[in-house]
Each structure stands twice: as structure tokens, then as C-alpha cells.
């Protein structure tokens, strides 16, 4: 059992303490924005925010987030009413296959929460743990910049 705040609501999940948060989100809670990429914390597709920090949910046992505040991409807005960051990714057409984009957005959201107007260098440094195999990095960087303006 683990209780935490998820996108503003209190949730309690029934899972072994060492179950990765990613599995709890996707399989238990049916929130499928966070993606399984490598399972090793090397690609960033599973990135969510815990207490405002970007973390790899594939490497985060659910017991570790007991009582904490988790935000997933679903917490930033909906398809009908996208949040500012999501709208910026749409405006810049930053997704090609889209698999990495939820993680990219959560990494960016954590950056913008701390640094509302980052420099290009700060954006590059913050986004560095997240990989995109399609090669839309330049659009992703522009989208983060746009969201900060």
C-alpha cells in the first residue's frame, strides 16, 4: 500500500513496496502518458515530477513516494484544454513519433517551475537527460523556450 498525491488528488495504491512508480501509474492507475523506454533511467521517456523535481519513474519504487506530490503529463492539461507547455509543443510541432514527448514535457515543466525564464543554455542543460530518437530536439528546445515566454 502507498498513499500519495497524484495530479492534485489523493490516491492509495495496492502494490509491493518495490514496484516502480511507472508500473503503478500505467498498469494500476491507467495513466499512460509516462512511457516505458529503457527501464534503466537512461532515456527519460518515463519522466514525471515528484515534489516538483523531474524523476525517472521506472527507477522509483512506489514506497519512496509515500506522502509526496506526483505530477504526470495528465496533470498539465487535457487534449481539449492543453496547458501552456503542451500548447507550446503543439505550436512548435515538436513531436514526430511522440514517444519521448511526455517525458520531455515533464522535464521541461520541472525546469520552468524553478526557472520560469531559462536561457537557451539552461534549457539544453536541463533537457540533457532525455533522449529523442526521431531527432526533433531543435523543435523541443524551441517549444520549451516558447512556453517560457
Amino acid at each position, binding site marked *: 500500500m502507498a498513499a500519495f498525491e497524484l495530479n492534485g488528488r489523493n490516491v492509495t495504491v495496492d502494490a509491493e513496496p*518495490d514496484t516502480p512508480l511507472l508500473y503503478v501509474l500505467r498498469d494500476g492507475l491507467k495513466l499512460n502518458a509516462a512511457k516505458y523506454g529503457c527501464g*534503466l*533511467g*537512461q532515456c527519460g521517456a518515463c519522466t514525471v515530477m515528484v515534489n516538483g523535481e523531474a*524523476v525517472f519513474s521506472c527507477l522509483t*519504487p512506489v*514506497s519512496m513516494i509515500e506522502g509526496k506530490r506526483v505530477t504526470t503529463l495528465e496533470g498539465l492539461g487535457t487534449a481539449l484544454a492543453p496547458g501552456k507547455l503542451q500548447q507550446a509543443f503543439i505550436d512548435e510541432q515538436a513531436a514526430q513519433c511522440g514517444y519521448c514527448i511526455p517525458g520531455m514535457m515533464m522535464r521541461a515543466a520541472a525546469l520552468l517551475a524553478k526557472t520560469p525564464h531559462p536561457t537557451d543554455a539552461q534549457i539544453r542543460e536541463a533537457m540533457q537527460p532525455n533522449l529523442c530518437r526521431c531527432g526533433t530536439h531543435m523543435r523541443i528546445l524551441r517549444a520549451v523556450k516558447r512556453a517560457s515566454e
Partner: protein
Amino acid sequence: MAACAPSLDSAPSLRQPFDHGLLERGAQLAAIGDCYGCHTARDGAPFAGGVAMHSPFGTIYSSNITPETQTGIGAWSERAFARALREGVRRDGAHLYPAFPYDRFSLTSDDDVHALYAYLMTRTPVHATPPSNELAFPFNMRWGLALWKAMYLRTPTPAARNDASAARGSYLVEGLGHCGSCHSPRNALFAEERDRAYQGGDLDGWHAYAIERHTKAPIPWDADALAFYLRNGWHPGHGVARGSMGLVTEQLRDAPEADVRAMAAYVVNLMGAPTPQRSAQGRELGAAPLASARNGPGRGGEIYRTACLECHDGTRPMPFGGLPLTLSLGLHGESPRNLINVILHGLGPGEGQTSPVMPGYAGALDEDQVVDLVTWLRANLTDETAWPDFRKLVRESAAMDASQLMFPPGGAGTDPLAAKAP
């Protein structure tokens, strides 16, 4: 020794082109001395200085050692350079702070000083003035350093004649390589404690482990393994170099193999022959690294199984796969400082090169969880006694900026997969 030394002439004694062989030897010696590591700031020009070194007395910034005449050493004669290196005196006669390890560089031979001078005087000149030192009174009074030198400067001893390689290893480790500058504890005057040489020291947020008989390496080092580690920054039985040691190994890649082997043999000799029991344990660990791991209760174990074991299970080859943590000196060593640094800040990717990468957990783990994890790892994956209260170290590491702690990460060579470990 005088409170202030005379100023030396400003005309460089050598302006003619240097011999190519001399430059190559200078480059190799500079790599062994890791001049680059301390004299190159992150994102700064090579050898232009400005790297902060923290001492108990305040912060000292490394100087610009490019051959630029106004802010670097472009106006220095070889005599002035040799005096700075071996006696710690600036060209204008002021004493240098021992963050510059002249207490060991004093052992460097005339020929080697000559080659180093030739190498540095042919680097790209950079106009750059490092920040001013931030030292409290009385440590900002340089004349006091004359006394320090009288107490702590090393003098060369005649080399043993019977074994050239052993003499070479001793000369490089004790002198230019200045291994003891980090790997020895320092006294209240920031001098290495001679009677505890190589028993491990703390510097700039990292712990340099004991590299003499107190070594806690789970698999005892041998000269082949250590030479490979020093030149490649990793070894399958020992893990990857990080922090400032990552910089050292990155430089040693360019050092002559024979010199690195001699240094490795000397250091392994300092460690002494392992007891039969340690050797046997090392062999068992090497054959089945995780067989001895216990699985005790506690939240640390939950974190280990989900966050660590996914990579550190020994199923992927080093250096990209994680080291089985039963082999990690980080867990076995005398201080948990490095383990905590790596847990919180991870290992960043090498700039423009393949390298091992580990995510940092600073955002994911809070202080209590790091303490739980470190305590659990020590209790379940080693036979060592628990570390004394280390919560302060967790707080210190968490407060540090990862980039300041990590240096430009080295670790693996340009093609780690091509390197075959002994």
C-alpha cells in the same frame, strides 16, 4: 628560506622552436602531473586557470599557465618556471600556496622540468586573470608560507639502482604524479601528514581512498588491473573513476604505458600483499559478485532493488553496465562520501565521447531515504562495520551543484568497448 624571494628576469630564456621529441615528452609529463585538471576551468580554455580549490583557510584559484605575457607565464624564463614548480615561488618572488603541490613537484628532475616548460610555453596563449583568492587573515599573508615550506618541502632521495621500473614508479607517484596530494590526510596547516601517507584524504567534496595497506578494495588490486584502471578510467572488478579521479585517468590515457605500469606497481606495493583471506574473498567475489549479497529488511532494500539493481546486477559488461555493488569501493571504503555523491548526482555523460552514465537521485530521494539506502547497502552488501553518522555528508552533497562536483566527467576512453581489461 627568505620571507620573500627575489624577482626573476622576464625574458624567456628559450624562444627558439622546441624539439618535437621534447614537446611530446613534456605532454606526457603534463598528463602524469595532470596540469590540465587543476588549471582548466569548466568551459574555460585549456591551462587558463580559474579552478577553485577549497582549503580550510579559504578558496584558492589556480593560475593561468598559458604562455600569455600579461596574465599567464609567457614572460617567465625557464629558471623562473623551475623555481615555481619546485620551490613554490612566483616569478615576482611571492610565495605560492601549497594547493599547487610543489611540496611534491620539488622531486622533479631538471630534464623533466625542461620538457614541461617546453610543452607549456608552446600552448595557445590565453588572456585570462583568475578570480582573486578568498583567504582569511593570517592565511592571506604569503610570507608565512616560507615557514611552511621549510617544514614540508620534500627533497629528492637517491633512486634505488637495482630496479629501474620501481625507481620510475616511485619518482612519478611521489613527485610529479602527486597521488598523495589527494590520497593523504592533511594536518591543520594543510600539509600532508607524513606518518599517515596515502591513508586517504578529503578534497573538494570527494574522498580519495586509502591506497596503502588500509585499502578496502573488495578485490585486492594487482598491478595489471590498476594500470588498466589508471589508463582507461574503469575496470570490471573495480568500477569507474569519477570526480577528480576521472580527470586524472582521462589524462593518463596520454601517458606512456610503461610509466603508468610503473606507477601502478608502486602503488600496489604500497598496498602490500593481501592476506590469504582477502585474496580468497576477492576470488569468490570476482567469480560470483552478488552471491554474498544479503537481502535484509528495510526501506533501503526496496530502493536498492528498484533503483539500483536494474543496472547494477552484473549482467551487462563494464563500463556501461553497472558494477555489482558488492565490488564497489564506494560501499566498502572508509568514507561514504563518494557513494552519497554518486547516488545524489549520478555520473554525467562525457562531453563528446562514449562514457558510462548513471542518473542522479537528488530529486527522487530525500535525505532520510538516502541515509536508509546507504545504511542498507553497507549492512547487506559488505562485511564492514556501519559508518558513523553520515547525515551531514548527505546534506553537504545535496547542497552542492552537480557540475561543480563532477568536473568534466572522464571515466571511459574514446572506445571503451575496444579496451580489454586484464
